[in-house]
Structure formats: structure tokens, C-alpha cells
């Protein structure tokens, strides 16, 4: 069955430290994966998608099909990165719907 797992509920780092938020997926089809972010008192919004191979706000994520992972990374965390991060899988192909992991709360300390 399709599933998205984010093993860490909370990740706390100091400003300037590297960050890696883990995401593993289980899906028999060809995966399309996304990272969504929710800043305090704001709406859930798209951060990045793997097919774009883009870097947004210094974050990158590489799809590793062998390890079925899509970890989110940033070399130097900033305080404004503190937020809830959700990994999402597009289930059912391009005509499908998103399923989300349970989220990881990132706290960046000064």
C-alpha cells in the first residue's frame, strides 16, 4: 500500500547548522514527491517538487528510488526555517491525489 513516513516528529538544530528532514515512501508506481511547509499561522504551501529539481529557500531534495527516500536538506539552517514540514506522494499518477506524511516540526534555535 502507498505510504509516506517521516520518522522524526521534531527536529531541533542551531542556526547555521545543516538540516536533513527524512522522508521515506512506499509506492508500487512511479513516484512523484513533494515537500509542503506550514509556517506559524500560515497556510500549508508547496515548498518544492522532485520533478522540478529546484532549490527553494536553500532547500533541496533528491529522489532516491533505491532507498525509496526523498529527504529534504539545507546546508545552513535559518531561524525563519522553523515550521512544520510535510512530505507528500502523488498517488494514482498525474490524475491522482496527494497523501502526506505525519510531518516533522523543525525548530531552528538562535
Amino acid at each position, binding site marked *: 500500500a502507498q505510504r509516506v513516513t517521516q520518522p522524526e516528529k521534531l527536529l531541533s538544530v542551531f542556526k547555521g547548522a545543516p538540516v536533513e528532514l527524512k522522508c521515506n515512501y512506499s509506492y508500487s508506481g512511479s513516484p512523484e514527491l513533494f515537500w509542503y511547509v506550514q509556517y506559524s499561522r500560515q*497556510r*500549508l504551501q*508547496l515548498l518544492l517538487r522532485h520533478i522540478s529539481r529546484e532549490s527553494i529557500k536553500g532547500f533541496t531534495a533528491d529522489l532516491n528510488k533505491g532507498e525509496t527516500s526523498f529527504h529534504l536538506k539545507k546546508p545552513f539552517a535559518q531561524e525563519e526555517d522553523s515550521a512544520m514540514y510535510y512530505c507528500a506522494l*502523488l498517488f494514482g499518477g498525474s490524475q*491522482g*491525489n*496527494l497523501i502526506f506524511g*505525519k*510531518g516533522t516540526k523543525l525548530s531552528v534555535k538562535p
Partner: protein
Amino acid sequence: EAGVTQSPTHLIKTRGQQATLRCSPISGHTSVYWYQQALGLGLQFLLWYDEGEERNRGNFPPRFSGRQFPNYSSELNVNALELEDSALYLCASSFVGVTEAFFGQGTRLTVV
């Protein structure tokens, strides 16, 4: 451009009652998705509507239902409310073949 709007913001119901939640998608979006965000459970997929049809359904009992209107707005109905239905209900919209879903602020449903 107006974002996804949900109403009401907060809703308090007693056990056994029915709740109706509403969602207006971004103009031009035909797909509407409903998610339940209960404490500690993340976002659980509830329903997906596109062009007025239910396209997919998550692992929820039949007392969770909804519909999509010709103007693409949507309602989520929860019948026979139970205490564990208390959660934030999020609506999202997109063009069909979602590459980016846009979320509303949510409706906080409290069942007492």
C-alpha cells in the same frame, strides 16, 4: 488572486449531530481535496472531487461525504458526529493532474 476559502472557521457540534463544512477553490481550479488533520495524525486524505464527481476516497467511514457544485465549490458533510471527529479540516484545490495543491486555512471542528 483570492486563495482557497473555507467556512466556517470554527464549528462546535455535539455528538450525534451533523456538520457541514464549505470550501471555495481558486478560480479556474476544478479539483477539490479534503483532508483531516487530527492531533498527532498528520493530514489524512478524505475525499477528492473533480468536475462534480468523486474521484477518490480515503479510509474513512461513509458518514463522511461531500459533493462538488457546478461552480466547483464543495461541501464536506460529517454525519453522526463522534468525539474523535474533532480536528482541523483542510480543503485544497488544484487543476486536475495536481502538480501543486493550494490549501485553505481550515475549519476547526470541535465535537463535544
